[in-house]
């Protein structure tokens, strides 16, 4: 097995297995530090970020919102984890020179052209729909996919199957079948 990929990255098996170790160490460390086990996840942070932003213009509205009250609008462990993902990716990409400013991803450009506005609009709309879905399902590919399957949660298996199943279906519709290549 090759440990390096053609583009200078690490084998996804190796990088993935290390994330597995990190997930175990993290679950153990959060239990030790916070007294309650926290698993890797990301999407709840978007609720807190939305709440923090909204609170700066309409504090009363946020205070009275049932969902914000449930998820607690604050900078917490997971919020810092998400900020850390940005920093870790920045360090990794700068040190191995894979950092690249990109306004339109290659696979998108191939199908829809080089318009940044078009890409931005669809990325935004896709983001809106995806996050409504992630909050409804109570997790994303990190929380349901990685953390859910590691714990053998039924909800993790079901959610990941829905994520990929729908993703495959919609991707076929949006980007066309393989024959379009």
């Amino acid at each position, binding site marked *: 097995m090759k440990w390096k990929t053609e583009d200078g990255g690490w084998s996804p098996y190796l990088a993935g297995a290390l994330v597995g170790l990190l997930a*175990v160490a993290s679950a153990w460390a959060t239990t030790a530090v916070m007294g309650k086990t926290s698993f890797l996840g990301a999407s709840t942070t978007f609720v807190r970020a939305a709440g923090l932003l909204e609170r700066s213009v309409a504090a009363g509205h946020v205070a009275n919102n049932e969902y914000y009250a449930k998820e607690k609008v604050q900078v917490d462990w997971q919020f810092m984890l998400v900020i850390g993902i940005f920093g870790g990716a920045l360090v990794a990409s700068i040190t191995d020179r894979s950092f690249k400013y990109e306004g339109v*991803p290659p696979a998108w450009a191939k199908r829809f052209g080089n318009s940044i506005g078009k890409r931005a609009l669809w990325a935004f709309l896709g*983001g809106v729909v995806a996050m409504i879905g992630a909050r409804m399902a109570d997790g994303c590919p990190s929380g349901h996919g990685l953390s859910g399957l590691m714990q053998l949660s039924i909800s993790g298996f079901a959610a990941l199957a829905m994520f990929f199943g729908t*993703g495959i279906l919609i991707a076929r519709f949006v980007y066309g079948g393989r024959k379009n290549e």
Partner: protein
Amino acid sequence: MNSLLLGLITGLLFGFLLQKGRVLRFDKQVGAMRLEDMTILKFMLSAILVGMVGIGLLNDLGALKISHKPMNLGAVLLGGFLFGAGWAVMGFCPGTSVGAIGEGRWHAIFALLGMIVGAAIYAELYPLLKSSVLAWKDYGKIGLPETLGVSRWIVIPIFWAGTIALFAWFEKRKL
């Protein structure tokens, strides 16, 4: 240690590994959904294989506590559908969007903004959903071993065997 610092350190390592695995790219995510490039599945399943053994062991030793997310049928099915649809168009998931910005793929900022707006919309819809989709059928916080009535240590080797077979197939097909 303070929980915020712990989160930051964990996130830095997570982001580093996500970037090294090259899974932060739009092309990799959409490539998986188009069944052309299985990098993200190899990455996720490898993490899961290692993680399920470690988490299972530490849970049995009492060093941490497994906590399942609820198997709320309407929520997981409709939510999973909406997420999958948005994911295919956006080409990022919540965690990877942040990482993608870190490696310079700045178009992910629009995905990130969309997700923050989506979260705000969800907060407004929540009371309505709570009495409809979320109230349909909740099986509660259930795990596969308890549901099957077997030990975790029966399920894990079977999952390993199936996943390794899948990996072999990916390599054979050069996916």
